[in-house]
């Protein structure tokens, strides 16, 4: 937990430094029309760097004194998180190819059936009905287009 605290603070400090670097490129002083484009990001970045510096100091001091403390993620928690995260990433990658509607059918079926061990009839019913309802609501009624992917357009019959 404490080691993670240090790493996250370092990461955020990097973000602050990036903001400062870009602000310097844009100019952060007083330009033709008042403060230049980099003015605001510069001070925000500076704020992040200063605050994370003190967070780091404190975290390192506590780490030296008391060791790393509790783990960030409960034992057994990490696989649980990946079990949610990875299928979601898979769904999004599939969406790029076959569109959100079809990708969702596969995703819901996979998650409920394989990971959740739901009875197959329920799995099939839900994983078809939910995207169908969304398709009717968004694409047909509210006319909000959802991602179609590269081949999605040809795969869904238009009606």
């Amino acid at each position, binding site marked *: *937990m404490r080691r*993670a*605290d240090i790493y*996250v603070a370092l990461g*955020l400090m990097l*973000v*602050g430094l*990036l*903001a400062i670097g*870009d602000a310097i490129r*844009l100019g952060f002083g007083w*330009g033709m*029309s*008042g*403060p230049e*484009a*980099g*003015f*605001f*990001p510069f001070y*925000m970045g500076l704020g*992040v760097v200063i*605050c*994370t510096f*003190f*967070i780091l100091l404190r975290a390192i001091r506590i780490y030296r004194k008391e060791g790393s403390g509790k783990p*960030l993620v*409960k034992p*057994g*928690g990490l696989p*649980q*998180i990946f079990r*949610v*995260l990875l299928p*979601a*990433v898979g*769904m*999004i990658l599939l*969406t*790029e190819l076959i569109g*959100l509607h079809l990708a*969702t059918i596969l*995703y*819901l079926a996979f*998650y*409920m059936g394989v*990971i*959740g*061990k*739901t009875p197959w009839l*329920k799995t099939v019913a839900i994983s078809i009905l*939910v*995207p169908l309802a*969304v398709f009717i609501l968004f694409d047909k009624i*509210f*006319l*909000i*287009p*959802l*991602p179609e992917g590269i081949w999605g357009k040809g795969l869904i019959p238009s009606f």
Partner: protein
Amino acid sequence: MDIFANLMTGLSVAVQPYNLMIAVVGMILGVIVGVLPGLGGANGCAILIPITFMMTPTSAIILLACIYWGALYGGGICSILFNIPGEPWAVAVTFDGYPMAKAGRPGKALCLSFLSHGVGAIVGVFILTFFAPLIAEFALKFGPPETAAVMILTFSAMTRLGGKSALKSLVAIFLGFILAGVGMDIVSGKLRMTFGSIPLMGGFHFIVAVIGLFGLGEIFLTVEEGLKMEGYKATLSLKDIKESLRELYIHKRILMLGSLIGCWLGIQPGGATPGSFMAYGFAKSSAKDRADYGKGASSGIIAPEAAAHGAGTSATLPMITLGIPGSPTMAVIMGGLMIMGLTPGPMLFKENVEFVWGLIGSIWVANFLGLFICLLFAPLFAAILRIRFAILLPVIIYICAIGAFAVNNRMIDIYYMLIFGVVGLFFKKLDYPIAPMVLALVLGSMAESAVRQALIMGRGNPLIFFRPPIALPLMLLALFLFFLPTFTKWMKRLKAKKAPV
């Protein structure tokens, strides 16, 4: 009086059949969103914003606001029956609500929660109705330095709430502003912090961040802890309602105290979550039956629930009068308004009378409706929680993905959403507060232009932020609120040193 005439206009807008229907739909969706852990008021609103583009602004804000009220009502259901807070503001009610349900009175606990919510809402909307016009009138005198001062006050109040590390809150705020700055600079038209990549040119939309940080982050946290949904059946009888009403009367002092604490935190910005905790703390320290707290004391349910709803409704006040949202969910709603081309702030009261009073009218109407919907259908809403999490979870993620995509019709936003989800998990674990970051992201461009314009007015002299008569007291108050916890800590230490051991 002017206010009453306006309120009547507002009520007549709110009870138009279409708006009434929208309010009921929003309320029901809101309760569902509130009941489900992982979906909350903030991201419930964020997901639905794209749909509201199809509506008139008045109907759109009624829908979004009703989702918030519904989520406020619904948050308690999960807490009381399952000991799992469906919303962050419902954490405080688990302390006494769940023990009461455990002791065989889940119905009474639910009734107490709903009725306290109702009272909190009435107090909040009462304050809103009578103070909003005054504050809006006053805020018309604001120039850029005053606007900047109000924002600084907002953030300094938020930094020291909840007792988390002030440094981490500051980092969260600065990060929010940096993220808001990515993309095109509004003044010079230069590209900022894009580092030559085209997707970054579009910037980060706050809706995507909200869905990732609040929605996915919460889901990851829930699965990591291994959610077990075991709870009590909700059965409401007339006897429960009668008993709860009597309890409310007995604890009327705590009820009012809770509502007012909530309202203060809604206006001051803070929101429902710190409001409910603070009210619980106050109630506990002032109650005669302190020994009962944590074992199912009625007042331990009344105080946080009244405060949560009071904070929620009164958070509307700074949003429509000053353009400063009083809670994270309000920030999302305000962002939605800005997308529709309405700038929340004092001019709204002058230019969009029907919109503003329609909103206020709908808050009156919707909260009464919500109370009855909850009392009547609580068992149905609780039944949602009996659906297996393995089914709910992928559907929730799917809905989140739709919401993230529909904002700008960009695939990249779905990836951002996932990244924000992981960031949200880390932030929650390491105690970086998320609410101020979201607020900064929503207010980003407004705050930046206020600061830059003020500096131009002052020819680069930062003393312009302290100009009397309005900006000066605001800034002093901001500094006071920021340093107050530090001072009290010092005072305690001094006292401890002086006192003989």
